[in-house]
């Protein structure tokens, strides 16, 4: 049962003023979201960070040029956030690292979204034995420690990815420089383990709309299963899907940084927030800023994503549940 408190409802005069225009679920949700200060804060910070990370490196100093004479210097007017042990500008490295971390978070979540929604929808729609088997597989995968799975996948696909890398580097506009293959690998590996919860959520939602009249009507009109699932069912359960996707992105970014901590992240001279934090943690006794700045930016991003996700959940009135 969804919990409604007076706070969640549009106030009486507001509702009266809007009645003539009529308002959909989405405009309602947008309205509620805009009144949720933490969510708005999260959204604004995310947009600002994304702009900074994707446009910033065009104007900032180089992330890879070393200055060994300078070494690790504390923040100064020239290098706002200081430099790392090789004299590279930390601000530029954080911006560049943000590109990769945000991109990994976004793309891997989309991979997880596509796999999870398709899998869950098929299981829920077909039902019966197929559903039982498909969900049992998900249960089994839940019991596997995902880190080992990802590590094995990363090791397993290392050689093929180097070939992809060589091929990609011919096309400068596609590539982020050396190591694009490894980033693609990160997308795939993380996406491949993060779809499980999405599949469960979507299956549950599909089960609940399956018996509704409009689905019966669609079936009576002779539509096939593909059309019914993707044109009729999914649009009706977009709320939970959107909410869960926004909450998957921080989980994915955490996983990426954890893999970087294991040394499976992108290779130098590239950086991601995970690799910056790892390097910073190793040198923190002498040069604490190397840990503090990347750590804060990373946490701020997760903060914003979670606030936005929570806000969306309240705005779309999705029940908070794990299954």
């Amino acid at each position, binding site marked *: 049962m969804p919990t409604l408190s007076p706070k969640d409802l549009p106030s009486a005069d507001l509702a009266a003023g809007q009645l003539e225009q009529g308002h959909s679920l989405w405009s309602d949700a947008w309205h509620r979201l805009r009144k949720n200060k933490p969510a708005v804060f999260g959204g604004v910070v995310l947009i600002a960070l994304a702009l900074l990370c994707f446009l910033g490196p065009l104007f900032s100093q180089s992330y890879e040029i070393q200055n060994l004479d300078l070494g690790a210097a504390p923040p100064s007017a020239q290098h706002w956030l200081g430099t790392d042990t090789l004299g590279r500008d930390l601000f530029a490295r954080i911006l560049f690292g943000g590109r990769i971390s945000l991109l990994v978070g976004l793309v891997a979540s989309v991979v997880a979204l596509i796999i999870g929604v398709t899998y869950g929808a098929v299981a829920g729609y077909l039902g019966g034995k197929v559903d039982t088997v498909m969900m049992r597989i998900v249960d089994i995968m839940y019991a596997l420690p995902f880190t*080992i799975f990802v590590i094995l996948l990363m090791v397993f696909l290392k050689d093929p990815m180097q070939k992809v890398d060589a091929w990609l580097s011919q096309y400068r506009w596609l590539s982020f420089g050396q190591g694009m293959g490894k980033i693609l690998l990160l997308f795939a590996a993380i996406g491949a383990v993060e779809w499980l919860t999405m599949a469960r959520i979507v299956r549950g939602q599909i089960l609940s709309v399956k018996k509704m009249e409009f689905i019966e009507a669609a079936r009576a009109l002779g539509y096939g299963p593909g059309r019914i699932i993707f044109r009729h069912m999914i649009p009706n359960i977009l709320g939970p899907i959107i909410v869960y996707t926004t909450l998957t992105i921080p989980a994915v970014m955490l996983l990426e940084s954890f893999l970087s901590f294991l040394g499976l992240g992108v290779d130098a001279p590239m950086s991601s927030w995970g690799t910056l934090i790892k390097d910073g943690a190793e040198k923190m006794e002498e040069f604490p800023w190397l840990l503090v700045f990347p750590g804060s930016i990373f946490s701020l991003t997760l903060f914003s994503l979670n606030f936005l996700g929570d806000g969306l959940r309240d705005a779309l009135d999705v029940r908070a549940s794990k299954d």
Partner: protein
Amino acid sequence: MLRFIARRILETIPVLFVIVTVTFFMIRFVPGGPFTAEKAVTPEILRNLEAHYGLDQPLWKQYFNYLGSLLHGDLGPSFKYPNRTVNEIIAEKLPVSIELGTEALLVALVLGLTAGVFAAARRNSWLDYGASGLAMVGICVPTFVMGPLLVLVCAIHFGWFNASGWYTPADRVLPALTLGGYYAAYIARLTRGGMLEVLNQDYIRTARAKGASELRIIFRHALRGGLLPVVAFLGPGIADILTGSFVIETIFQIPGLGREFVTSAFNRDYTLITGTVILYAALIIALNLVVDVVQVWLNPKLRFE
């Protein structure tokens, strides 16, 4: 109830079997073996090594040998630690991880439940905002940032604790706080959410109408139902916490199982990987069973389903 438990235990056998099979074959399809990384291994030595560990036999035979010894509770010899069995390694490292895990769990439960209950009881007050905000910080600052920061402040700057090591009782404080704090944040959020949901229900209003005190309402009436989401989270959560955390054990130099988990995958130590995965999976399955039983106990509605 007993029949329910018995059925669930029987159901886990095929699941465990599938997990063993999948892990066994998955690692062996990864290119390179446990001995490929070692330098200066002549082909003869390699052949001898492989013969010693039975790796020269066909895959299906290795598989059935492994299953056979597994039925006797034998997880086989480690490939990377000479003359040691996986059973010995687990018996040596697991207690350390369990000790740290128990302490962290204690921190997590005490901090998380208290913060969650208070935040829900005083919804939208400064207490709520403070507790919820702190919980959000706990979730968003990963352990590999929090751990080094705690070391930097408490060990290096103030010198209250050793920066790493696992000898004196004081060495337990920072790792338990780092690991437990992370889970405390989750528990606080789930407790708050669960309590708020319950506090809106009719039977709470009835209890209020009958004049029950606020304390009695929270602890006697609401807590049981409000804890359901926490219990569901604790199932896999406890398995994670007890089998050790690679990050925490690396930062604080703790000789636990969490590090073996990850290094065995890098080393292609086939038997050690499979052994730790089986341990973890069995623990998750067992704890999920406990969770189901506890949920039925907490929520009488489920008893009739």
